[in-house]
């Protein structure tokens, strides 16, 4: 009898819980995963476009002629480590250690800003070497791909700083740490995409 009553009560309770879902996963988290799934198609298109056009220089300089692998390696390392600080922020919020969580959020945003600074430096150096956005199809494809990734990093930094401000205002605590997790998923995905870009675009040598 008790067993029969308990599920009925739970069902009744779930019906009034705005966060209850059939999957047992919050709608926000599921939506972020589905969004990231679609992002694979976007970045797949941009990477493929670059691979198709990477040798079409019209006699002008190509992006592959200008790559500074040691410099980009440091940028990649910085972004990789920002994934560590992001997950440490989530872990801290999960323990309700708000001070440490806020600190890790700030460090993650700063590492993202360092990565963006590196990209700005790279773009400026390439431009000064004569590689503008419309110089040739290879340049356009390269700037579009890395620029889109940079835009994603910038949006991530804005989201991280918003979380940091919310945490400072007391609106973000261990109880609603799922918000940190969802932003973290986005941030890790941006890192994941860079892992692919770094290998496929930068490290694979031209034939």
């Amino acid at each position: 009898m008790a067993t029969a009553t308990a599920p009925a009560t739970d069902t009744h309770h779930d019906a009034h819980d705005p966060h209850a879902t059939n999957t047992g996963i919050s709608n926000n988290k599921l939506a972020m995963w589905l969004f990231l799934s679609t992002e694979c198609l976007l970045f797949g298109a941009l990477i493929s476009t670059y691979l198709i056009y990477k040798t079409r220089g019209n006699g002008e300089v190509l992006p592959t002629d200008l790559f500074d692998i040691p410099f980009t390696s440091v940028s990649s390392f910085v972004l990789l480590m920002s994934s560590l600080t992001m997950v440490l922020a989530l872990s801290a919020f999960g323990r309700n250690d708000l001070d440490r969580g806020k600190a890790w959020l700030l460090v993650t945003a700063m590492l993202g800003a360092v990565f963006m600074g590196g990209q700005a430096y790279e773009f400026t150096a390439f431009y000064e070497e004569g590689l503008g956005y419309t110089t040739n199809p290879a340049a356009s494809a390269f700037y579009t791909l890395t620029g889109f990734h940079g835009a994603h990093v910038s949006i991530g930094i804005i989201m991280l700083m918003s979380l940091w401000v919310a945490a400072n205002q007391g609106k973000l605590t261990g109880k609603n740490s799922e918000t940190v997790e969802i932003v973290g998923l986005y941030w890790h995905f941006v890192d994941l995409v860079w892992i692919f870009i770094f290998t496929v675009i930068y490290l694979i040598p031209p034939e």
Partner: protein
Amino acid sequence: MSETTEVAVETRDEAHDDHHPSDWEYVKVAIILAVVTAAEVATYFESVFTFFETRWILLTSLFTMMIFKGWLVARVFMHLKQDKPVLQQSFFAGVLLATAVYIVTLLAFNVFG
């Protein structure tokens, strides 16, 4: 019987939710990622590059390291290992679809020679 099933389901759900790695485990994964990245970058330098006798060995090594790093980030940092399987299925559906579509596209444009 029904009671047993409920307990089993609850236990499985808890296993998905409550076994997040410790901070030290995250640090260990980051160290592994850094080491693999260093190995990837090493292939750029001529002394290491010439070690790979053919281009295909180099490409296979780079792709293996790239996929390993991506898998590690998704599984540990994005918690796919602990989360519900439907999330893993949703995400990898997108990854596989993108991979299939763009490999066909690249083949159509004769990118692989």
